[in-house]
């Protein structure tokens, strides 16, 4: 179905309706964006803070402690978190949801998402499942529109999204030959005025209605590929409004280009400054190029932690309703990148494959990273969606931040896929508990029963049976210390009842060292005690010629986190990596 079958007048009439619809839609899109941002905020606020012991039972929403019998809370069907009675919202006489799940449901209704989902069930193969028919018609009309503009030659505008080297060279070109520049300037003005007349249908003063320019904003770029226009001669181009518009657009473009730049490859930023210079000189040809690329859509994720392999796992399910990375060509080749903030090192980055030509990509990829359960609590999961345009050029499409401090990885029911609304870039993850992490401590821990040493696979160590807790320090990563120092590690196992056991490794010179040198053994402990024990490990820099040794970092392992893997498999080594927090004041070892 297309509009070309209608008579010209009828077509104008329908187009006028479609334009009205477009205005309504843009108001609606803004509203939905706001709704989703609010939801994201609520989710962040509901995150547990790290100051509490993990084993403590608290309401996942307000963090009030929950009792064993009295006010013990109940599990929310939506998120499987334990929720106090105050943080529940009734959805029916027999059903409640936690505040966050309720808000999520609310957004799903208020954003019309329910409708998209229902319709996708009936028409699963429609690619443009979020577009309305009005939108599609309007687009197709603008493509075949006879009101068009001559593309500037060479078109410096098209280089906005190409790698820096191309951009710079073509900028030089356009500077060297001013002719096409002026030419396109004329064409642009004429097309503007023609368009305005079409719309207002009044042959009167164009300058009197500068607002109309905004109405038509965005249609120019679509018709750029079209060929020449017929213009009646006696039209007055409106310089002021045109110029004003252009300036606005350049500004808008600057804004969006910094948003586009994001945190991707640093090689990009140099190209950008060049681009900005370029754009200000080719102002007039830029009109209508960039519709500020708003972040839309959702990302489907599932989070899990494998205690047997000490791996954090993210399942990236799918995305839906992404904005086009290349708004001009309506192209999108999305992929998802995952970090565990604050760690942004390249080596720990996890990435999905790039899916071509879709705004609703399906990834179904599992990304893994070996990391201690304990370490996760201080991390924020950052999953960002990018459009891969060229090898070097990536466009930011939105991100999801999930603070992991309140995530119940122990609870297998939290592992299902969930949709998260994508958000624009945030300056700093609001992890709350993000601390100065100085490095990472890699360990192996084992609990072995002294009495059952022969029965290797025995899982049945009684709670009061005395055993031996062994810690082997495998390495210290990323700790910034001078190369020639030696170090040792002090371990302090705090057991219930004010009992403390302190162990120290010998001083070890830098470089590969035998693992035994780093072994700490705590004898005569029972599983029962370990359950509530905490292990503090300190990395000390040994300075043989100075008076005092220097504390470089501290790591702690406590409570259920320490105990859980040991209990699940005794007599077996478990790998653990712990965050090393930088030392603030020097102490004596």
């Amino acid at each position, binding site marked *: 179905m297309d509009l070309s079958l*209608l008579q010209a007048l009828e077509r104008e009439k329908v187009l006028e309706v479609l334009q009205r619809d477009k205005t309504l839609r843009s*108001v609606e899109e803004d*509203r939905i964006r706001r709704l989703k941002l609010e939801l994201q905020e609520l989710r962040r606020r509901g995150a547990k803070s790290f100051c509490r012991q993990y084993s403590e039972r608290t309401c996942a929403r307000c963090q009030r402690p929950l009792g064993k019998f009295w006010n013990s809370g109940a599990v929310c069907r939506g998120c499987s978190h334990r929720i106090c009675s105050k943080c529940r919202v*009734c*959805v029916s006489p027999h059903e409640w949801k936690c505040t966050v799940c309720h808000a999520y449901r609310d957004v799903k209704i208020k954003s019309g998402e329910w409708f998209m989902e*229902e319709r996708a069930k009936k028409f699963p193969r429609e690619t443009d499942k979020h577009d309305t028919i009005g939108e599609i018609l309007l687009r197709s009309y603008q493509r075949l529109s006879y009101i068009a503009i001559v593309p500037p030659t060479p078109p410096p505008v098209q280089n906005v999204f190409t790698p820096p080297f191309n951009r710079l060279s073509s900028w030089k070109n356009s500077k060297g030959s001013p002719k096409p520049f002026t030419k396109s300037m004329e064409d642009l003005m004429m097309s503007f005025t023609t368009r305005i007349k079409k719309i207002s249908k009044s042959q009167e003063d164009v300058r009197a209605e500068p607002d109309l320019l905004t109405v038509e904003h965005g249609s120019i770029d679509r018709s750029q590929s079209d060929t020449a226009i017929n213009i009646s001669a006696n039209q007055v181009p409106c310089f002021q409004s045109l110029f004003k518009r252009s300036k606005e657009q350049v500004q808008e473009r600057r804004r969006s280009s910094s948003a586009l730049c994001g945190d991707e490859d640093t090689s990009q930023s140099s190209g950008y400054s060049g681009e900005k210079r370029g754009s200000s000189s080719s102002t007039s040809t830029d009109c209508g190029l960039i519709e500020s690329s708003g972040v839309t859509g959702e990302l489907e994720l599932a989070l899990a932690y494998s205690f047997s392999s000490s791996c954090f796992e993210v399942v990236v399910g799918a995305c839906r309703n992404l904005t086009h990375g290349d708004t001009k060509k309506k192209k999108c080749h999305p992929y998802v990148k995952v970090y565990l903030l604050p760690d942004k090192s390249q080596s720990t980055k996890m990435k999905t494959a790039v899916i071509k030509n879709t705004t609703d990509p399906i990834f179904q990829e599992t990304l893994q990273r070996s990391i201690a359960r304990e370490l996760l609590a201080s991390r924020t999961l950052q999953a960002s969606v990018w459009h891969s345009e060229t090898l070097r050029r990536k466009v930011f499409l939105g991100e999801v931040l999930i603070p992991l401090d309140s995530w119940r990885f122990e609870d297998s029911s939290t592992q299902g896929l969930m949709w998260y609304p994508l958000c624009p870039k945030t300056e700093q993850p609001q992890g709350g508990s993000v601390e100065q992490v100085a490095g990472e401590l890699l360990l192996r821990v084992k609990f072995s029963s002294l009495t059952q040493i022969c029965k290797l696979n025995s899982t049945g160590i009684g709670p009061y049976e005395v055993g031996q807790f062994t810690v082997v320090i495998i390495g210290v990563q990323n700790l910034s210390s001078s190369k020639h120092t030696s170090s040792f590690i002090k371990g302090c196992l705090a057991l219930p009842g004010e009992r403390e056991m302190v162990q120290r490794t010998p001083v070890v010179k830098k470089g590969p060292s035998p693992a035994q040198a780093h072994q700490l053994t705590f004898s005569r402990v029972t599983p029962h005690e370990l359950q509530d024990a905490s292990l503090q490990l300190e990395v000390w820099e040994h300075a043989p010629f100075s008076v005092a040794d220097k504390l470089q970092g501290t790591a702690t392992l406590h409570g259920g986190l320490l105990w859980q893997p040991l209990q699940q498999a005794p007599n077996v080594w478990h790998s653990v990596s712990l965050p090393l927090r930088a030392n603030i004041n020097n102490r004596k070892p």
Partner: protein
Amino acid sequence: MSQFPERFSAGSTMTDGDYDYLIKLLALGDSGVGKTTFLYRYTDNKFNPKFITTVGIDFREKRVVYTANSPNGTTGKSFKVHLQLWDTAGQERFRSLTTAFFRDAMGFLLMFDLTSQQSFLNVRNWMSQLQANAYCENPDIVLVGNKADLADQREVQEKQAKELADKYGIPYFETSAATGTEVDKAVVTLLDLVMKRMEQCVDKPALDAQNGEGTSKLDAPPVNEKKCAC
């Protein structure tokens, strides 16, 4: 039942995003049954006796306050609803255009003219058009017999129409765009159905959550059988 939507403060602030729901309804039916006039009555409370046939499509807007019933029976919260009311051309030659718009509407006003037996007979065809093009197999529809004020010219009996509506399992109203009788009620009933549908769609339990998050629901520990706190 929900309360009648009240007229929004009659200001001209229809262009802002200060509303809770955007609900898209669509009127369909033969040419001349009074779709345009009906919607004009609903949004502006006026009657236009002139027949200006609709070209292709059009829409009107209205903001209303919707008061839902809370689950425990008391009067619930009020929401601001922005209604986008699509008006389609009944003429055959626009058919491909108008039916394409069916896919974006959440609820339908299927109209016929009480003074035209033919327009009533065509309801069947419109129903099958809806089934093929609407967002789901059984969308929310209200059957409207219009021009009830022209009693002496009536060709369709209420019983007849009611039977057909019952067969489809949809509500039926006899309205008059000329006097305004039952116009609001027909629209509000449809709005109510759509609002309920939205809730059902998101609250549907694990049944169709199999496509993805099924595991989380199935493995969830049993919920405490405690009464809700609210």
